[in-house]
């Protein structure tokens, strides 16, 4: 008898709570899917702006992965660089930077994204705003002239304009410094935003400037056609210019069920509706197609606003988030000094996500007041 119970103890089988099988889904697989979906945009950026783009992407990815590793070492957490989420942040950050960005700024961007926005708040799944966008906004406010220098490094013909632009931007940044000294926060903000718009106008860069100023020709360059915007033959951030390649990536994410359509559709729909109503000289005459194709709306709606950690978990909440992003984007584009508002819109809505989740708790199957219905 004793012998038998000994055998039982030694041969004790593995016990665990059900279910005893799991799907092949994994965090790494999802992140790999996102990276694959972003590759067309990286490829188009490289083709259009030249090989420097690859260098920028390499720097941001390396900066993100290394900061994640060091951070987790210092904080004595499990090392999670294997889940590829830091790589995704790096690639997204690169796509949100101008092609001529100095590499050291790109590197700092990666550090901000991972250390300041992701790891300090608890690592993957805990960040309160999209790390890549948060970093982009901090870079924009810190190095406005570099972050709004939209020249194409592949085109030497633009050299004149560049130096012009830089000079003006320099002048403006001096203005910023002066304003800084003046201790007035609001005037700093004003100066910064005017710096942005002036710099934008002078390098006659992003297509949204035409919408902002209502001009068809700026600095001798005509407003781009819809087809140019769709294919990506315009200036702008590395990854935002071509709607076509972004949609290819988005389709891949949808097929792989990594994202759902709730946020992109409600976001883009809201922008279209509001710019059509408010964007023209008279109500209901706005050029909504231009507002959809230009700027970083497509990149933001499909790849940034859908970020898991910073979007609601219920489809209903996601629609609310999309509409909110749309409203803020349009308000910034039409009524502020900034030509573009996608980054600000998304990070502002990111902050509301816990609240949205709280108000969209679904009714359980058969829950609440349905008790009397069948008897």
């Amino acid at each position: 008898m004793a012998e038998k119970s000994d055998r039982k103890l030694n041969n004790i089988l593995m016990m665990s709570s059900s279910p005893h099988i799991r799907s092949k889904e994994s965090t790494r697989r999802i992140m790999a899917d996102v990276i694959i979906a972003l590759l067309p945009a990286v490829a188009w950026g490289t083709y259009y702006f030249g090989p420097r783009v690859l260098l920028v992407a390499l720097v941001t990815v390396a900066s993100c992965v290394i900061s994640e590793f060091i951070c987790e070492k210092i904080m004595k957490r499990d090392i999670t660089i294997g889940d590829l989420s830091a790589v995704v942040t790096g690639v997204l950050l690169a796509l949100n930077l101008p092609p001529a960005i100095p590499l050291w700024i790109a590197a700092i961007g990666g550090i901000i994204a991972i250390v300041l926005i992701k790891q300090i708040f608890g690592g993957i799944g805990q960040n309160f705003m999209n790390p890549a966008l948060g970093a982009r906004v901090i870079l924009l406010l810190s190095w406005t002239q570099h972050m709004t220098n939209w020249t194409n490094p592949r085109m030497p013909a633009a050299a004149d304009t560049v130096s012009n632009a830089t000079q003006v931007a320099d002048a403006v940044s001096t203005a910023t410094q002066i304003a800084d000294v003046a201790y007035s926060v609001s005037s700093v903000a004003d100066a910064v935003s005017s710096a942005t718009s002036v710099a934008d106008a002078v390098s006659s860069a992003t297509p949204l400037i035409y919408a902002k100023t209502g001009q068809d020709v700026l600095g001798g360059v005509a407003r781009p056609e819809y087809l140019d915007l769709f294919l990506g033959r315009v200036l702008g951030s590395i990854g935002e210019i071509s709607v076509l390649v972004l949609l290819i990536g988005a389709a891949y994410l949808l097929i792989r069920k990594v994202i759902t359509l709730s946020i992109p559709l409600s976001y883009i729909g809201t922008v279209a509706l509001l710019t059509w109503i408010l964007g023209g000289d008279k109500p209901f005459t706005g050029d909504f197609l231009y507002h959809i194709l230009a700027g970083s709306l497509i990149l933001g709606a499909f790849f940034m606003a859908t970020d898991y950690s910073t979007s609601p978990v219920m489809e209903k909440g996601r629609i609310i988030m999309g509409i909110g992003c749309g409203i803020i984007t349009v308000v910034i584009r039409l009524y502020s000094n900034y030509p573009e508002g996608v980054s600000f819109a998304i990070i502002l809505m990111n902050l509301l996500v816990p609240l949205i989740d709280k108000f969209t708790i679904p009714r359980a199957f058969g829950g609440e007041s349905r008790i009397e219905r069948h008897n």
Partner: protein
Amino acid sequence: MGLCEVITGKKKFHGGIAIPHCKNTAQCETIKMGVPEKVTIPMLQHVGEPCKVLVKKGDEVKVGQLIGASGKYVSAPIHSSVSGTVTDISKMVCMNGAYVDAVEIKTDGRQEIHESVKPPSYHNDAELLELIKGSGLVGLGGAAFPTHVKLSPPKEKVIDTLIVNGAECEPYITSDYREMVENSWNIISGIYILKDLLKAKQVLIGVEDNKPEAIKIMTNIANTSGKIDIIKLKTRYPQGAEKMLIYALTGRKVPSRRLPMDVGVIVMNVNSVSFVAEYVKTGMPLIKKRVTVDGPVVNNPSNVEVLIGTHLSDVFEFCGGFKEEPYKVIMGGPMMGVSQHSLENPVLKFTNAILAFDRKTAESVKKESPCIRCAKCVQVCPMNLLPLFLNASSIRRNTAGLKKYNVMDCIECGCCSYICPAKRHLVQSIRLGKVLLRKEES
């Protein structure tokens, strides 16, 4: 006549998952296993009060003899499945963690039938219910709820629909399927007995559409008898869960924390229905069970008719033994079954499958990583819950959060844990959360 039409289910429940079917034993006809050398019959094989042992060490027992009973209403008597000598009354840990008596019987191989086993007769509903109670029948789909309790709804609950559950949505298990293919006439006679008892107006048999042969056979028989509808259901886990099945077949939603009878429905597993017919014919209580024996390390996966109390090791031995040492043994399906600590555990009344997994299959249940809020668990939850927040509340022992996110509505089907890319132990934490909340409320 239009009778040959196979009706498709009315409603699609929210969420659910597509999982590998692994119905390797679908074509394996049931084979009868001989009498093992000894059996262990625990006194708790149902939901409710454990039975008291009615025999003592050294007693001679016969097949069908009552060896355990309880005075309580929510309980089910237990009978000997073999003839032989009681060698010991030991204690064992049951599946729900309770520590109960178990009768160990050394068999004599003669399988003499006890004199109490004879074809019963009954004249009214009350007598029939008494018979079913005496048969020891519990829900054979795996829930193990005493059948006589289920069949006695309070007077004010009008039952208009009897649903027979042949969905069998768990991977591997084919014991319900074999019943429909091999004993379809028994199922139909059982349905008539229960339909009269419940005064039900309609009978619906739900079968998933990955079992076309069962649908065909059942439809042919139902056509000749009429008034029974076979309903084809989309193959999607957990289609066989009671609330999901009722919704798919009738469009009715069982309210939170209520029973099917609250929407006029009684759900019975095909095997339970079939047993009722068998019992009324022969009077032999519940002493044997068809068990699907499968899993990557089993040499000959099969459907085996096993005497209740037979040790798992004997059943696996009967199926050709193992290719390699099993790492994990599960009683029931891989989604909701219970892992066993020992191969010396006995087959119980409601055991529908025993599965043996190797290390590789078992270790797909990996180490947890942080939740990335992908909300896949929300998308698959058939009860429309938010498993990720339940998980967080449970870990923080936050009972207010558990209540807010309706922890008690969870049916523990396992869809959320299955799909979770971070491999979080969602169902496990929700189970703990339920205990936590119950403790606080009491």
